């Protein structure tokens, strides 16, 4: 009688979990250490000149670039300007002198978004010396 040759039984397949868990921990630690929330907030620096009580009110404004922010639009040196025109004007100013002081006069009734837009355009053109003055009207 021929004897059936018995096949050696395969060992039960077992998945070794330890290396996987090690790697998972390593990944976890790596992500916790390296993650940095994206900064979506920007800060627009402004300078606010203190009111000088000795200066007469009717004094001629000094020779600098004046931007007016009103409820319905902007002005550049008292000439009404759209945001695009304002951008162009600031670009020109920056190409001549990036250190030029920009005086931004803001009307009390204008919305804050208008001022932020003007400050953003200044930042876009690399102008950093900004003075924000609040108008009473």
């Amino acid at each position, binding site marked *: 009688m021929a004897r059936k040759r018995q096949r050696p039984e395969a060992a039960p397949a077992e998945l070794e*979990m330890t290396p996987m*868990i090690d790697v*998972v*921990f390593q990944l*976890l630690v790596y*992500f*916790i250490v390296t*993650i940095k*929330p*994206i*900064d*979506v*907030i*920007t*800060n*627009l*620096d*402004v*300078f*606010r000149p*203190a009111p000088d009580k000795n200066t007469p009110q009717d004094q001629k404004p000094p020779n600098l670039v004046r931007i007016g*922010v009103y409820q319905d639009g902007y002005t550049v040196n008292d000439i009404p300007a759209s945001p695009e025109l304002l951008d162009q004007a600031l670009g020109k100013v920056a190409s001549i002198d990036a250190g030029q002081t920009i005086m931004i006069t*803001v*009307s*009390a*009734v*204008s*919305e*804050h*978004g208008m*001022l*932020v*837009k003007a*400050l*953003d*355009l200044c*930042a*876009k053109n690399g102008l950093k010396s900004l003075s*924000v003055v*609040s108008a009473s009207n």
Partner: protein
Amino acid sequence: MRKQMPDAKMDMTPMIDIVFQLIIFFVVTVDMQNKALETSVRMAMAPNGPVEEVKDPRTIVVDVEADGTISIMRTPLGEGQLLAILKKAVNTSGQSTPVVIRGDLEAKHEVIKRVMDVCGKAGLWKLRFAALKEKA
């Protein structure tokens, strides 16, 4: 013959469960940090504004809502209270303490001006306006 002891095996399932729980916890809490910025203030967009690399831990954030409510850490304040808080900040951390004004894009400049005036009264001169660099 001696009876053989069964192989000591560690059950890995609970451990893996915990690891996954940890991952989920950290992913969710990291997202929460961004949510902390959420207020009823809708900030204006300033895509060209600079991003502050080094954050001053002394920074005071003053929120100005569209209806003119002034608040710090979601606590509405009157001008007198704001002045008292800012003066205290000046006493503890000096006049160079930065103030970030987080104004709603529809807030009237009049209210922002009041906040700036109070800062001036308290002796704080480092003023900044917060805006959104990109849509969050």
